[in-house]
């Protein structure tokens, strides 16, 4: 789904390369950001649970919370963000040209993007991958039972290729039913044109809500491809890279230590040295990034820890109800892991 415009991407990135370093904006992003008074954050032009304006016109979502965390770390104010909505094609140009400081737009971390576009991935805020949704009545509990199934898939996406690879690798056959848009795909699934609907797991949840009887469908546990999504910054400004990277790590560490938006103030008095270091009570760990000692405290008190952000936007407290799965902390069976603060 994310890579369906690969050709465009290559074209624009080739152009970016041809222009070389001229495109790299000023090296000191932190100073530019402080002078401007707001973090310019590139988000998606609408992706359920990741970034979308709510009824009040405020941006909400898991990707949006990364922007807010960075703003909280830099300014102590999570609202000091200017959201620039970007489509899949222009997102890297916008970052390279300095139009945005951070790109937090469900972007998959791949070798090509990391090594040839002059960009750095600052971590992973959502481990996505292609999954399957089936009708409960089929009685299928694993994707390996899907031999011979009719599969609804959106055309022109990498999903189509990945599913074909997966079925071939497992010695199974399938009958692809291809649709142009996600609405049509849901319609086809609902009309019974196929047994299985496939897309990225983050999308499946959003598609599932649109069914007339969401409870009748289940999302299978298997994820058949790796799509680590994360915030991206420009290469050549390590300080800014660190700020974005550690803003995300601070949220993960906070969850691991049990610090939430509600209890962060009492946790400040905690004797636990890890917590004291994170919340700036013992030494200033923001100094190396050019931030004050309260950087992590500001993130947690204004945005919350990673788990809170997850639940609020895509997890159980949201309409999407995506299981934590591999996005759980490493201590709880997932792979979300942040280096320690010390």
């Amino acid at each position, binding site marked *: 789904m994310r890579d369906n415009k690969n050709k465009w991407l290559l074209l624009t990135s080739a152009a970016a390369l041809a222009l070389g370093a001229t495109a790299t904006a000023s090296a000191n992003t932190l100073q530019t950001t402080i002078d401007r008074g707001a973090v310019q954050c590139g988000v998606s032009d609408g992706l359920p649970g990741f970034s*979308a304006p709510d009824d009040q016109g405020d941006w909400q979502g898991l990707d949006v919370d990364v922007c807010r965390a960075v703003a909280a770390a830099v300014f102590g104010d999570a609202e000091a963000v200017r959201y620039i909505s970007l489509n899949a094609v222009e997102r890297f140009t916008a970052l390279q*040209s300095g139009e945005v400081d951070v790109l937090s737009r469900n972007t998959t971390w791949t070798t090509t993007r990391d090594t040839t576009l002059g960009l750095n991935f600052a971590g992973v805020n959502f481990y996505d991958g292609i999954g399957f949704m089936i009708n409960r009545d089929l009685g299928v509990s694993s994707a390996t039972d899907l031999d011979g199934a009719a599969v609804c898939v959106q055309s022109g996406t990498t999903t189509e290729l990945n599913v074909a690879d997966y079925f071939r690798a497992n010695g199974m056959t399938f009958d692809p039913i291809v649709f142009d848009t996600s609405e049509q795909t849901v319609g086809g699934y609902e009309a019974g044109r196929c047994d299985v609907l496939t897309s990225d797991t983050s999308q499946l949840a959003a598609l599932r809500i649109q069914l007339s009887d969401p409870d009748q469908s289940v999302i299978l546990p298997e994820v058949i491809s790796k799509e680590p999504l994360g915030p991206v910054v420009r290469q050549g400004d390590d300080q800014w890279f660190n700020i974005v990277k550690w803003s995300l790590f601070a949220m993960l560490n906070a969850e691991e230590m049990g610090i939430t938006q509600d209890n962060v103030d009492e946790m400040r008095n905690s004797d636990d040295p890890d917590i004291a270091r994170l919340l700036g009570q013992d030494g200033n760990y923001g100094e190396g990034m050019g931030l004050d000692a309260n950087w992590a405290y500001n993130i947690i008190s204004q945005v919350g820890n990673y788990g809170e952000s997850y639940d609020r936007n895509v997890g159980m407290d949201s*309409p999407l109800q995506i299981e934590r799965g591999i996005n759980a902390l490493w201590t709880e069976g997932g792979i979300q892991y942040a280096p320690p603060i010390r």
Partner: protein
Amino acid sequence: MTIQLKMIEARPAPKNTVGPLAWLRANLFSGPVNTVFTLLGFYLLFVLLTPTIQWAFINADWVGTSRDDCSREGACWVFVNARLTQFIYGLYPRTELWRVNIVFASFAVLIAWLAIPRLPFKRWVALATLLAFPVFAYFMLYGGHFGLSVVPTHRWGGLMLTLILAVVGMVAALPIGILLALGRRSQMPIVKSFCVVFIEFWRGVPLITILFMASVMLPLFLPTGMSVDRLVRALIGITLFQSAYMAEVIRGGLQAIPKGQEEAAAALGMGYWKRMGLIVLPQALKMMIPGIVNTFISLFKDTTLVMIIGLFDLLGIVQAALSDSRWLGFALEGYVFAAFMFWIFCFSMSRYSQYLERKLHTGHKR
């Protein structure tokens, strides 16, 4: 022999040729074939309209605040209702909406003034609309002066943005188009070839390409640290594109004016600009009203393409709203609303142009 001195009074038309029944018979049931077609037509209308009306009105949900208030049997207008402010103003800060309202209201007053024939001072009002109003609108909407806070253009959106794009495009494209059309018919080789190249270039590429270039490539060519606002980029792209189209429409009108008109004006001793401004253009523009309005309407609808460069016009903001996880699955309602808004504006433009044609009708139509 009697001589009828008085005129015999006209008798009323036979009963079976007047009234609604006769109308029905003459127009709908005038023969077996027509009767069959009429009945078939009614049947089709019934089959198509019943579910539509049922969906849009009878089974629809109108009041509420969240998706739980929608039964999902009919349309969920609650969604449109909850998002209406956003559809009209985009992400413009809620506390500053009065600024947009003032701009909308003053624009409506100016346009109404120009459109209603009885009101005086037309020339001054026109001048104010063209010169003072854009400056006023800029200061009101963008702010930064007179104690108004700055509202950056990425927060503009919805119907407001669609109207800004369309109005700026129309107002700027018309004069540029006129100049290009005149230039293309000019005897001066440099002017002529510049105009030909300009028109053929901009007319030869799709608008979507121009917008893409403006948003993806332009930032890479600009010097470091310099950036042109996206809205400005889109406005420039749309204006250049539309003025090329406008130029060709107007050139069509210019060619329809007999050469004698210009020669007669020249014989009276008029210079080039007087000949064009007083004799040729008034006739040509009047004749081209349908073509010009056609271009305007297509421009109005083309503004939705700015969606691909991340600007939230009316359609863009509807689509963004559709991806709010609290409102998933109401795509149809959103699109119907957007279509209805576009239809209102395009239809009004079309009606006004017909009124204008009638008003300016001086017997040139054949």
